[in-house]
């Protein structure tokens, strides 16, 4: 008995192609297979001879091609893996079908039977009972993870029409976006926890009556901090380009 891993990827491709063709046609010729695999007929013919020798294919020159029972078993296995991988790539990961097709071909030959079985079981679960609910949950999960999956944006490069100033130097009513927090240690940590992070919008509200702590608005709440701490926060001011 041939196990998948005993059969070379090329052989798997042949067997799978024949399997697929069998589902469509009654009689399969060498040129059909060549068309399916995008190869020349003589090459296909030669390879079919080798497959026949291994007992995976039943084929006589100039006659139709048929899978042997052993070949059919292997082909079905490969085809199943391909289908499951494609479904995983498109349904779950949301990859487009063309890429999925290509990646599935690449993965299916090298994937271990254990992983394949687990994946098959998982997709079985995904498609079971209430597929809509499962997928929807995952959709939400993905959306919410969007930020984590995305690569970090590079710090905004200063440009000529961009006005950058320290948070401590802003005027009441001015708004902007935090560009960087140049602070280390506990101060930085506290600022982080309170949500003073890069890319965040801030509005300067006021200075305290005695001039020192300032009040800002960030993430929908009001925060006060000293100028010495605020001077470590760099802000890109809004509307500076128009000035």
């Amino acid at each position: 008995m041939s196990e998948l891993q005993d059969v070379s990827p090329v052989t798997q491709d042949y067997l799978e192609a024949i399997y697929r063709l069998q589902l469509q046609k009654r009689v399969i010729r060498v040129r059909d297979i060549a068309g399916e695999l995008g190869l020349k007929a003589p090459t296909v013919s030669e390879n079919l001879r080798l497959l026949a020798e291994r007992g995976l294919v039943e084929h006589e020159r100039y006659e139709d091609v048929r899978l042997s029972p052993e070949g059919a078993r292997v082909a079905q296995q490969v085809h199943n893996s391909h289908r499951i991988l494609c479904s995983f790539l498109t349904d779950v990961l949301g990859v487009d079908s063309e890429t999925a097709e290509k990646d599935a071909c690449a993965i299916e030959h090298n994937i271990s039977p254990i992983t394949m079985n687990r994946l098959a079981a998982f997709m079985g679960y995904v498609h079971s009972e209430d597929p809509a609910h499962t997928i929807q949950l995952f959709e939400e999960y993905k959306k919410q993870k969007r930020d984590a999956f995305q690569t970090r944006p590079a710090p905004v490069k200063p440009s000529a029409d961009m006005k950058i100033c320290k948070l401590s130097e802003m005027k009441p009513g001015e708004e902007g976006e935090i560009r960087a927090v140049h602070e280390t240690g506990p101060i930085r940590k506290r600022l982080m926890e309170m949500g003073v992070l890069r890319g965040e919008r801030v509005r300067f509200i006021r200075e305290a009556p005695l001039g020192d702590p300032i009040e800002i608005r960030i993430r929908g709440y009001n925060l006060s901090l000293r100028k010495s701490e605020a001077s470590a926060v760099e802000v890109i001011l809004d509307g500076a380009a128009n000035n």
Partner: protein
Amino acid sequence: MMNSLNTLRTPVSLTDTPQPPPVAHETAVSAKHAQLTCVLLGNPNAGKTCIFNSLTGSRQRVANYPGVTVSVKESTVRHADHTFTVIDLPGTYSLSAYSIEEMIVQSYLLDQKPDVVINVVDVTNLERNLYLTTQLIELGLPTVVALNMSDEARNQGIAVDHDKLGRLLGVPFVPTVGNRGIGLSELLDTAVAVAEGTSDIVRRVPVNYGEDVEQQIALVEQRIEAAPDLIERYGKRWLAIHLLEKDKTVCEVIASHPKGPAILAARDAAAQYLESVLQEDIPSLFAERRYGFVRGAVRETVRMSVEQNIKISDVIDAVVTHRLLGLPIFIAFLWLMFKATFSFGEIPMGWIEFGVRRFGAVAAGVLPEGFLRGLVVDGVINGVGSVIIFLPNILILFFFISLMEDTGYMARAAFIMDRVMHTLGLHGKSFIPMVMGFGCNVPAILATRTLENRSDRLLTILISPLMSCTARLPVYILLAGTFFAAHATLVIFGIYALGIALAILVGQLFRRTLFRGEAMPFVMELPPYRIPLLRSVLLHVWDRAYLFIRKVGTVILLATIVIWVICSFPKQFPGSENIRESIRQLEATAVSTDNSAELNRLKTEFAEQQLRYSFAGRLGEQVAPILRPMGLGWKEGLALLTGIAAKETVVSTLGVLYQAGADADESSESLRAALRNSGLTPASALAMMVIVLIYVPCLGTITIIRRETGSRRWTLFAVTYSCVLAWVVGFTIYHIARLFNL
């Protein structure tokens, strides 16, 4: 550091020691879940204490002080067939071991492993509040989120799909209105479901920190596997993340583990790699991802229309924190607070005084002449009465302090005053303990736990006793009222101001000598203004009153008895028989005007002589030489000595000492008259007030300083420096006053 918990009260019952269900309870209870330990957790100002009070119906056991929640409160609640032990933890923004409060919360969660955590979040500030929730999720404890203030949110046009939010984060969300008790029953139902694992919403949805970080977390996790005992306690992922974040507690725990060095090495390698690849320090990486996670979830589930309440808050702030108006408004508010405390307070004071006098008279009539009557009437009723009379002042003052806290004005006070606090080397937050200090130094010192840095804390602890507490107020009222009748309020205000000024000077001095180094960052939320609930304000006031009454009933009662005894014994003194004989002779003869004057003179002389030679008098004599340069005698010395027990006692001691010669009319008015006739000058009275302001904090405060500093040396230092300072300032004031012929 984990043992910092030892200083906390351990909850009475934890699940690992399930207790049999109460006998009175009829329904059969499954023994396994009859008891649930439930912890309330959330950002400061999210309404935790409100939910706690509503949940527990009655108030919590009075094991702490009003104001900032710093100690762990607990209470028991019955719900359906479960008994909850509810624990109210201090408010925190995060679960890292950064401030003392965070350390308390962190170690509580890790060591006590409560059955369920109720995370109270403020819907009107969801994003910031949910940051803590992500850390709770990471910790993996069974959690329910109470979406508190949902009524306020609705008014502000904030609509939260709490069901969806719960499914996204894998923890159930229950909308609540803490102060009206809405949603609490459902909250407890959900808590039971979560604790018993029957909630269908609960999933583990850890924050994904992105590929690079996750990889490094996995690497550190691998190394942590060498320490299964730690994994058992804290969980692998949590340890790895907190190691990467360089959490103090976790690093210490790991470092003291036999496999520690290898784990720390792996952490360092991972941290170095991440910092070089991502060009960002690791704590902010984690913070960014957590906020990203939260924002994603909030974006999906929250719809906002207008920020109405914020606008009202902004309008109020535009006035009360105005550049020019802010400070005057604040000072005016403080003035109003004191004026109300003293002026309104006089009315009920009169009633209480009347009641005490009547009670004394009745007791004197019932009891036979002798030792017992002396003890009860002169000792107990007189002594305790002269203290209990100040209850109205304390109630009014605490009413204002609670009002400031509940409305949110307290945070503005810190905002306005930070500049000043900063110049004395302190944090604006130190202002809150300082203001609390006006009420009582004990909660003030407890409130210093909001300060993150140890030297900030120590400094605040050392100088906050200079804030004149309500216990000292009776002394001022007595002395200022007696010697500066027309300007009593001004003098008292001056004493308070002197306390503040000294705090500034001493603060600067200590900051420059004892505590060199930087103060902690001032990063403080200015919560939106809220209309305070009368109930919650009254609750604070009642707590305060209860503590005061209890103090009167215990420490002060005991002190007055001791004082009376040491003043009354021994009865004999050199020449006592002679005077007694003369009195007897005079009394035997017919009563005439000449006679009665002579009789009074002799009686007074007898009492004075007796006191002078009593134990108390001898004790006072020991102190007197120190006080003589300020025109104070042994009576004041004795009063100050007894005042160490509790400063109110200064008044009751003066009462016993000065009224000993007069006939038994123990009203304040008679004491005032006695004081006026005692030969004390206004200058000496000023010096006396100054000394009372500064010298040794009372026993309660000393105890709390010892507990909070954890150091006998600092406690001793606090006592010594305050005595020396009291003498120096008292002496100076006395001589300045003399220049003005007072």
